[in-house]
């Protein structure tokens, strides 16, 4: 039966965390059930205090075939990292 149900991606915010992190996916007939299933499957060991579910089909992913043109050009542009500034001595915690 689960193959007839849409796939959902589950995001959980942990007690200490500020952001929701992707933890996995599951099948459910609708959003409400996806939420309940996520609670049962992914928070049984106190993993979180907030859940997001989103139907997998609504996620637009980058194409692995385009990885070269997407990511490689950043490779030789180290100057984009803010490591070329001289930090004055009396500034701490930088």
């Amino acid at each position: 039966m689960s193959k007839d149900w849409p796939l959902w991606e589950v995001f959980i915010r942990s007690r200490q965390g500020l952001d929701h992190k992707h933890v996995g996916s599951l099948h459910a007939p609708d959003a409400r059930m996806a939420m309940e299933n996520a609670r049962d499957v992914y928070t049984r060991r106190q993993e979180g205090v907030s859940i997001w579910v989103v139907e997998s089909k609504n996620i637009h992913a980058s194409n692995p075939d385009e990885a070269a043109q997407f990511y490689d050009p950043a490779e030789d542009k180290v100057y984009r990292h803010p490591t070329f500034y001289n930090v004055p001595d009396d500034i701490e915690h930088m």
Partner: protein
Amino acid sequence: MKQDYVLHLADTHLILGQRLGEWCGHNFVLEQDIAMSNIALDLFGQCRSLYQYAAELGGNTQTEDQLAFLRGERQYKNHLLVEQPNGDFAFTLARQFFFDVYHQLLCEELVKCSDKQLQAIAEKSLKEVRYHLTWSSEWMIRLGDGTTESHDRLQTAVNELWMWTHELTTTASYEKALDVPKPANFRTAWQAKVRAILNEATLEIPADGTQQAGGKEGIHTEHLGYILSEMQMMQRTFPGMTW
């Protein structure tokens, strides 16, 4: 007397947990396998607290394990509803739903009772029980108001289980004598909640025909013996065995 009452509560949790546990590894989707095992584990957690309390009330002549694993069929005081076989998913679901409505009403009353121990157990249980009822209500609505097949299967389950539901809101002799919630007092509330969900699920409410009772006083259907023989086999074969 009070021990009888606490054992009645504990036995009901244990037998329903055991029934739900039978689904483990056999459910139709992984998500529900985990959901139903979670509910079973909640019930086992609650029954442990209750058996520990029952052992204390009995002067600790028996441990919680002895109470759970070494009593006979006639000493069990669970509701007849919870010992009924799992059947198909609709059957298990309807049984769970009828129980959850009762269970929430019971816990809401127990948190107000004079016994501090029962009050504490009920307070801890209530959060779990509210979730159980949400889970079973959502499924009742989806399957009742789902396809023709899911509707028909669930209606059959509701009809066949109906005669075991009356016992949930009967008051046993030991309940009359104690300062504990009287289930007969929340019959109206039970019926109202069940009606509301069945209506939303487009299911017919069965007519009140013959009603069965007796479990709370130790008179059971033939199913309990089979549950106990499977559940108690290890302790009876290897007394005192631990993991």
